[in-house]
């Protein structure tokens, strides 16, 4: 097993929302949020715009799969787990029991939502149409399609829980995908990466992603942590802010700075692993079942 990561080249994203709908279809999520540019229990990934409304650069916004995720630490049911092998932070929906008490008498207060300073994930609510979780309140978040990686040995009831494995978008018939396939997980891309028509996302080992994010490859700015990275060859990347309701997270002032020649000329030092701007995120309003109706 190898720690995997998603890299989004924000210069390439066109906000077609293909990843959003592919994700919702893959995970049988509900469709309850007209306009969908907000985080919610039935949203695992959305696309935000770094500048003014819908004017780009466009950035995918979902769980970062932190190296040391706080949500995992505080779950009384151990429903949220960090797969040390693949790096995915995932939720076992059979264990997640919002508002319930565990064997030690500790009640779930949705701390996972509160602790997350980055993506506002997980969100608790009736997010899925998939049996048996349909109409059950659970915590939902991006899992890097964990459980769909075909790792039946590691997750014996993976198919039951998570559905069938996803195919890789890479054709392995004529040798093109051979090197790629050397890592087993690469055979099964996350739904979002698999779908992306603009090929703005790269799914690879974390080590390869980090090795790729160097100025020699033309990148002038990058952000990320855990298994989620953003990079640009054109301007400053500011990781999406953890505000579930605001699509665009940069003020017009900052926007104008980012649009100026300065931004293009400036070689911003790598801020990998920092996600500093994300720390300014305000804490999340606790989302209960009613969030599903938002």
């Amino acid at each position, binding site marked *: 097993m190898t720690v995997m990561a998603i890299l989004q080249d924000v210069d390439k994203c066109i906000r*077609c929302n293909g990843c959003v709908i592919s994700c919702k279809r893959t995970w049988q999520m509900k469709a309850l949020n007209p306009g*969908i540019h907000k985080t919610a229990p039935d949203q695992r990934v959305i696309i935000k715009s770094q*500048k003014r409304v819908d004017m780009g650069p466009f950035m995918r916004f979902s769980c970062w799969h932190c190296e040391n995720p706080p949500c995992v630490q505080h779950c009384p049911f151990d429903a949220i787990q960090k797969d040390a092998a693949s790096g995915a932070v995932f939720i076992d929906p059979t264990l997640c029991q919002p508002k319930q008490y565990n064997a030690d008498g500790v009640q779930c207060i949705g701390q996972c939502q509160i602790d997350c300073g980055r993506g506002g994930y997980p969100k608790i609510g009736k997010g899925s149409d998939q049996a048996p979780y349909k109409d059950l309140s659970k915590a939902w978040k991006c899992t890097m399609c964990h459980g769909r990686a075909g790792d039946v040995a590691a997750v014996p009831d993976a198919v039951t829980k998570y559905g069938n494995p996803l195919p890789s978008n890479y054709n392995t018939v004529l040798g093109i995908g051979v090197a790629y396939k050397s890592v087993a997980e690469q055979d099964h891309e996350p739904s979002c990466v698999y779908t992306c028509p603009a090929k703005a996302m790269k799914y690879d080992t974390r080590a390869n992603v980090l090795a790729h994010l160097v100025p020699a490859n033309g990148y002038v700015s990058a952000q990320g942590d855990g298994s989620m990275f953003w990079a640009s060859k054109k301007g400053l990347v500011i990781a999406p802010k953890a505000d579930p309701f605001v699509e665009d997270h940069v003020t017009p002032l900052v926007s104008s700075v980012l649009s100026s020649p300065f931004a293009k000329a400036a070689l911003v030092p790598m801020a990998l692993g920092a996600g500093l701007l994300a720390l300014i995120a305000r804490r999340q309003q606790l989302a209960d079942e009613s969030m599903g109706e938002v």
Partner: protein
Amino acid sequence: MTNNWTDIGNASLVIAWGANPSENHPACMAHVNRARDRGGKLIVVDPRKTRTAVVADKYIRMRPGTDIALFNGLVRRIIEKMEDGADASVSPDQRAQFFAFLNQTETDNANPTRNQFFTDGTMTTASSISFVPGGSKYTDARFLVKPDGSDYQRDRVKAATGLVTTDGPDSTTISNFPLKAASVTADPNTVYNRLKAHVAPYTTTVVTDITDVSDVDLEYLANAVIANSRCSMPLPGGALGVQDPTAANYKATTLLYAMGITQHTYGAQNVKAFAVLQTLMGNMGRAGGGINALRGIHNVQGSTDQGLLYGNIPYYSGNPASMHVDNKTQLADESSIFTLPHVVGTDTYYGFAEAMVADDAAADYLVSVLANKVATTPTSMAQALDPTRWDILVYRATNVADSATYTYVGKSDLITKALAAMGGDIPLPGDICWDGTTFRAYVPAATSGNLYEFTSADAQVWTATATVYTTTTAVQYPSVISNGTATAVYYYDGAGISHIPLTIGTPAPGAATQVIASGQDPAIEFTGGKYVLTYQKHPDGVWQASATSAIGPFVGAQRYDNDAYDSLDGLATGGTNVLYTPRTGTQPEHITDKPLRGFVPRPLRAVNAFGKYMDALWGTPLSGTGNKAQMNGSYDDAYNTAAMALQQRGFYNMTYDFFGSAWCQVPADNWTPDRATTNALYNLWPKGNGDDHITMFRKMIDGTTKALVCWGQNPAVTEPNQSKIRDGLYNLDTLVVVDMFATETAMCSRKGTGVTYLLPACAHVEEAGSVSNSGRVLQWREKATNPKGKSRSDIELMLRFAKALDVAGAFSHITAVWTTLGKSYTNAYDQMYAKRYGWTPAPLTNNFETAAVSGTAEVWRAPTVAGGGVNPAPTTATVNGSEWIAELIFREMCTGSTGFSWLYTRAYNTNLAQDKHTGQADWGTANRAKSRSTADPNGTLAYPGWGYSWLVNRRVLYNNADVPGDVTDYYMGPDSASRLFVSTNTATLNYSRWYRTIHRLADKPDTCLTANVAPHVLPGRFPAHTEPYETPREDLAIEWGRNTKGTAKWDLIKDDSNVAAPGRSHDPADYPFVLTTIRCVEHFQGGPITRNNPWNVEAEPEPWVEINSVDALALGITDGQWINVVTARGDSLGNLTHDTAFETVGWSQGFRARVQAGSQGNQRVAPGVVAIPWHWGDQGLSKGSRANDLCIDAGDANTVIPESKACLCNLVKLP
């Protein structure tokens, strides 16, 4: 697309002009991103700052509807910079290369590898065909036009050494090739200099005023195009550089366009402007270049290939009907490329048609015109009759029953001598032809006929001696005189020519006497041994088939009784009767289309039904028996499969396949393809060009069209000016909708006696078949699962629908012909539909897809692949239902010389080693649409083993062998053999005659330098700016005009389109905003698929209107408010000009405002412009106001595409 999706990755500059691939063609962006990864830039030119624009390197905003002005301004700036040696922004090497390219000629005539039309990729395996010695290699920039701009200066050249004709080797003189200047700048009349003169008025000042594009941006654009074209990878001293996209610093500009370019009243001209720029810059036929129409549906290219437009039969061939219909009707319908066989290389007929329609009140009307000379469209009868406008003009006066009263005007010398030489014989207009050098006339008589031929060495001095050919059998045809008070019809009753008086009344098929109402013009068809009137003049001035001519089982459909032609069998078998055009060995292909111009006024005779169509489309063979002594055999080659090239063979195969039994499946002895059989089957082709989309619904309103089958389309959302669409749908007797969902069309208001059927189609993943993408690549789509519920595959629905028609007798006429031919089949339906594919018509059961039909085919899927995923290799398996029948049809289409699609030839080929690019591995599948090789052996992003691209897997059209490894294509100038033509025939010049005419638009330089000189009716190669039909700049419309058809069939817009809705003004001043329609990524076309998908509806739940913050502030509109958008056609609350009521409650609530933020120029839309999506309607999970209630149905003067991208509107804030 001239190139391919993957080829976009080779571009160093991508210009998306009138396209928004981020939202409308998202998969395109992967290839754009690949180009950008390699250092390429993306420029977006659009009135709206789309999501494509916000990720682009440069965005240039323009005023809606001013593309050509910007293009011409761009061309002007480029030429200025190239010619101005002091302009330091262009290097001497760039300058030298630019002109070296334009002046380049083909140098290697002795070894013309570039001239071959077909190759397996090595460029050495195919025989050469005709070429012009010293001909231009890439462009016609050096060609000379006449000083008056009316035509090229023509040349006669000797064919190349070694080319053999029936007259012997090296003997063929090829005429009509344009003369060339020494260089593009050497003569003021080179095409280059004419272009330069044409764009001269488009100064930067003028262009910025028209387009609102700044001079800085125009300069940026000019510099960017220059820096990313062929001229910018020069070798020292102007030597011509390599064109390998893998070369370092490869420079190529590609132009992407979509509906932003086409949906204008000048949409066709817009596209031509693209071609002008790319040809000038040498970007055609290069990897990473070309002009690429983005076609979003996975099979929209396939639907065009299959001839779904009203004027086409499949594979870009003209409709055979146009050989038969009344010429007036036909001519008025001439508006689309590839449509009409007889209007080749001249704009004459357009002028003729319009003059006739325009001046119907005049006492005289034109019967026929033969001319090479008309500069502008006549606008009055006097103008039309002006002899100086025509070389020869023939017309006749009112109430004259005698052909002798035809009046000839024009070349007085010729006419005087000709008429004198004919000694009293007066040919009817339909029996004369004029090609610029030869005048021919045929005069039939009761028992004999004479053919006269007059030739001239210099087109002015005419030989006084006529060559006379006498026939022994009469040529009979009907003729009718008068335009209002008809007097007589000539007809042939078996004993001789008679004429019958005409009376006033309604025409009826088969009647001996016919009736013509006052104001009507009669026309004639032959039915059951009698000539009848089948046409009348519609009150709106349109020549149409009379409703009373409906013959056959389809009520409301236009049909022609083709038995008429069988009745002329006496002519068909006549040994010596002369038809309109002799062919000689000394006048090769370039004039062969011309005589047809004199032919049309009467029904085609059976002897040439098939052959003449073939000749009309592709020219007449020179050899065989086609010489003067054996004119009767002129068309033998048209029936000779051995002499046919692929397109002709494809049409021939199609005729047998569609109207006989499957060519490749039936016993040969049952369908011996003799001449009589061919003619008989040809006559079964449906006749009539049909109607354009806008006219079609008007005919439903007036009851002419009574039934509509709407297969996978939702016009009740997608068509502009919905009032008329709704009224038309309302009035239909029968409406059949085939769709996955109950669409707006299926659910529309209908009259009480109307019947609507909704046939449940399955989704595209539930059926199989080949699709052709925008890059012309055929790809096979496997059936992922069987249709859900009671839905059915399109193939099953079609088979069952045809069965229902069969029960009603729809195919009895075909069976009857087969019986006449002595075939043993007694049921056309069985042979054409069911039994052909092994299916027995059965009651509706669910086993069609699982058990009813099956066979063995190549597949990729394999259940044994653990966990699904891509199969490592194709295998064979038993496939069922639509998957098997689709495979059979594909084989019928694509199998070698017997396939009925010349376009897809060899797409099914069991020889896996054939037709490969250089370095390409063997094909993995016989069905090459199923080929899935991801190899790119030449590094050119061609991926030649992925699917199969027409033609012959050529990935870059017009490539001049410039793209390494690709199948060679050849660029040729005007009046030359088409480069699209493909042949495997190695018989020397023979197959060069089977050319396919490429320029259906008038192939003349446009002499119109400024707007007011002439309307741009089917103009030549240089487009000129015209304003949209509704424009906020009426001053510019006055100065530059609109792209009007002038006096033709209908002038951009129907009379009933131009009526304001009740209570509304029609004054443009009351509509201060320009309305442009947009699409969003979340919804697809008319919306039945996506507006019934909860995730898509969630993503984009309601229609909106984008408003600039400046306008919003002035109107007090804030973000999120509901806005009523109002145009002259109505508003978004359902108050329209329609006659029939439909429910507006619950969905027609206006548009939610999206007020933009930012500086005014940096928002989605500019001040004064608003944009609305048009996907919504009154059905589905998401309902909303329909943009097409508001949009105008002004149509392009050439193609009739409606102007969805620019009309005027007002905004009213809703409470």
